[in-house]
C-alpha cells in the first residue's frame, strides 16, 4: 500500500479489522514521514516515538485477539501542546513552561488512551493558545503545507498543518475564538468546535474558562466524528462540562441529511461587516447551490453584529486570561512572548462591572442566536479568508479584525469548518456549519454529506521539492 500517511482514519480502521493493515505499519509510516519532512512545516514540538510504537504494538495485539476498543483503536493522533500528558513535555509553546512535564493526563487524553489510539506527539500552537504567531517562544511557528511561505492560522496551527501534510490521521485542537476552525479552514481539513461542555477541558491549559473548547480535527468530517465519539461526554472534574448524555453513536453520521435541511445564512456578516473576497464568496455560493441540489433549502437570517459578540467575548476573555497569567506577568514577564503580553496584560484594567455586564450581554446574544434555530436546522457561512504569508502580525490585529468564528464561542454552539475548494493561488477555502447546542452529530453529518458531493477531499498538499507531485487521498 502506498501513501499510507494520506489514508483516512475510517479507511485505516476498516483495514485494521480486516487484517489488511496493522497499527504498527501505519504508525511507522507517520513517524518516518514526520522525521523526513516535518522540518519543512514545524508542526511538532515533541514527537513521542517510543510511546507511539508501544501504543501501536498494543493495539495490533488487541485487534488481532478480537478486542475492539472503539473507533479510534490503533488510529494515530497528535495533541496540541496545551493538552497535558503524563510524563510528556507540555510547553503551551511558552518559555514559562519550557520544562513542564505533567503528572496526569488530561481527561480527553485519558479517553483516547483508553480507546486504544496511538499518540504521535505534541503539536505547535500559539503561546497558551492565544499569542501569535511568535518567534520569541519555545519553538518556531508552524507553516502551511499548501504553501510553506504561508501561515496555517492559529492557534491549533501544528495540528492543522500536520493532518493536512499527512503527519497525523487525526488530532486535537482547542478553540476559544476560532482556533480549531481557522487552522482547519486554511489547511483544508475538517475541524469541529464541539458544543461548549461536550468535551472535557480538564488538563487542558486554560485560555478563557468560559469560552474554551477542545475538539477533534481530521481530513474528513467522518474522521472528526470518530474522534469525537471517543472524547465526548460528561466529566465531573470540568465545571463547564455538560450533563447532557451523548445520544446514540456520534461516529454514525446521517448520509441523507441534506434532503429537507433548512440552512440559515447570516449574509450581512460577510457582505457588510466583514466582506468576503470575491473568490471566497463565489465558492460559498457554489457550496449552497450544491447543497440545494441535494435537497436543502436556504433562507437568510439576521443575527446581532459580529462586533457585539466580539466585544462581549474579548472583555470576558481578557479578564479571565489576566487572572490566569497575573503571577507570570508580574514576576517573570520576560518568559512570555510579546504577542501574548500585549494581548492579555490590559486584562488587569477591566473592572468587575465590565466583566459582569459583558456576561449579561452574552446571555442576550446567546438567546437571540438560539432563537434563530427555531426556523433553521443549521447556519452556514465562510469560515475565513485563505491563508496569507507567515509573518509577524501587528499585535493590535486581535482587537481590529472581524471574525466569523468568535460568535459561536460566545454562544457555545457546535461549529465545524470543512474544505470548500481552493483559491486561484492554490490555498484551501472553507465553509463553516453551525448547529444547535449538543447537535454536534447533525453538524458533522452535514459536513460529511457536503464532502461527499464535492471533489475537495481528493486533493492533498505537496511539500514542494520534497516529494513527487502525485498525492491523492
Amino acid at each position, binding site marked *: 500500500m502506498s501513501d499510507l500517511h494520506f489514508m483516512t482514519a475510517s479507511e485505516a480502521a476498516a483495514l485494521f479489522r480486516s487484517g489488511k493493515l496493522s497499527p504498527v505499519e501505519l504508525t511507522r509510516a507517520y513517524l518516518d514521514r514526520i522525521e523526513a519532512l516535518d522540518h519543512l512545516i514545524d508542526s511538532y514540538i515533541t514527537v513521542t516515538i517510543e510511546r507511539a510504537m508501544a501504543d501501536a504494538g498494543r493495539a495490533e495485539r488487541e485487534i488481532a485477539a478480537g478486542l475492539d476498543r472503539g473507533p479510534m483503536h490503533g488510529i494515530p493522533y497528535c495533541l496540541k501542546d496545551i493538552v497535558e500528558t503524563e510524563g510528556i513535555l507540555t510547553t503551551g509553546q511558552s518559555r514559562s513552561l519550557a520544562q513542564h512535564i505533567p503528572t496526569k493526563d488530561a481527561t480527553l487524553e485519558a479517553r483516547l488512551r483508553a480507546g486504544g489510539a496511538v499518540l504521535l506527539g505534541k503539536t505547535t500552537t500559539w503561546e497558551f493558545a492565544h499569542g501569535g504567531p511568535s518567534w520569541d517562544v519555545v519553538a518556531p511557528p508552524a507553516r502551511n503545507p499548501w504553501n510553506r511561505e504561508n501561515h496555517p492560522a492559529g492557534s491549533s496551527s501544528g495540528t492543522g498543518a500536520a493532518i493536512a501534510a499527512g503527519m497525523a490521521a487525526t488530532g486535537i485542537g482547542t478553540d476559544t475564538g476560532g482556533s480549531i476552525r481557522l487552522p482547519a479552514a486554511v489547511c483544508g481539513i475538517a475541524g469541529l468546535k464541539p458544543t461548549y461542555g461536550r468535551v472535557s477541558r480538564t488538563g487542558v491549559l486554560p485560555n478563557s474558562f468560559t469560552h474554551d473548547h477542545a475538539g477533534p480535527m481530521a481530513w474528513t468530517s467522518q474522521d472528526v466524528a470518530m474522534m469525537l465519539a471517543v472524547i465526548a461526554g460528561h466529566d465531573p472534574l470540568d465545571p463547564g462540562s455538560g450533563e447532557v448524555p451523548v445520544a446514540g453513536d456520534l461516529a454514525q453520521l446521517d448520509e441523507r441529511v441534506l434532503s429537507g435541511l433548512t440552512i440559515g445564512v447570516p449574509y450581512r456578516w460577510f457582505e457588510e461587516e466583514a466582506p468576503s473576497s470575491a473568490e471566497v464568496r463565489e465558492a460559498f455560493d457554489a457550496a449552497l447551490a450544491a447543497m440545494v441540489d441535494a435537497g436543502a433549502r436556504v433562507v437568510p437570517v439576521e443575527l446581532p453584529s459580529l462586533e457585539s459578540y466580539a*466585544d462581549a467575548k474579548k472583555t470576558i476573555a481578557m479578564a479571565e486570561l489576566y487572572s490566569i497569567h497575573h503571577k507570570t506577568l508580574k514576576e517573570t514577564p520576560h518568559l512570555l512572548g510579546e504577542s501574548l*503580553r*500585549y494581548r492579555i*496584560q490590559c486584562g488587569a484594567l477591566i473592572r468587575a462591572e465590565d466583566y459582569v*455586564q459583558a456576561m*449579561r450581554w452574552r446571555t442576550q446574544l446567546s438567546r437571540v442566536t438560539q432563537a434563530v434555530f427555531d426556523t433553521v436546522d443549521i447556519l452556514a457561512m465562510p469560515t475565513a479568508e485563505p491563508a496569507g504569508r507567515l509573518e509577524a502580525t501587528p499585535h*493590535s490585529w486581535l*482587537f481590529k479584525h472581524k471574525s466569523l468564528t468568535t460568535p459561536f464561542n460566545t454562544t457555545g454552539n457546535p461549529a465545524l469548518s470543512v474544505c470548500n475548494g481552493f483559491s486561484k493561488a492554490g490555498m484551501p477555502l472553507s465553509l463553516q456549519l453551525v448547529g444547535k447546542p449538543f447537535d454536534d452529530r447533525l453538524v458533522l453529518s452535514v459536513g460529511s454529506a457536503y464532502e461527499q458531493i464535492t471533489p475537495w477531499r481528493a486533493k492533498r498538499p505537496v511539500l514542494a521539492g520534497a516529494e513527487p507531485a502525485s498525492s491523492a487521498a
Partner: protein
Amino acid sequence: MTDADTAIVSREDLRVLVRNAGLDPSDQQFEEMFDAYQHVKAMLDRLNRDFGFADEPAHVYSPLKF
C-alpha cells in the same frame, strides 16, 4: 503604535489606572499596555450596559458543579 495625539487614553491617565491595579510594569510593558489599552477602552465603551435588574449574567453558580 499609538502616539499621544491619537490616544483616547493618555499615558498619564493610564499610569493612574496601572498603579491602581497594583502593577509596576517595565517601560516596555507600559508601552505595550498604552497601545493595547486604546483598543480595550474603545471596546469597553461599546459594551452594552442597558439591562434590567433581573437580567442575569451568562455564568451562573451551580452548587452541584464543585
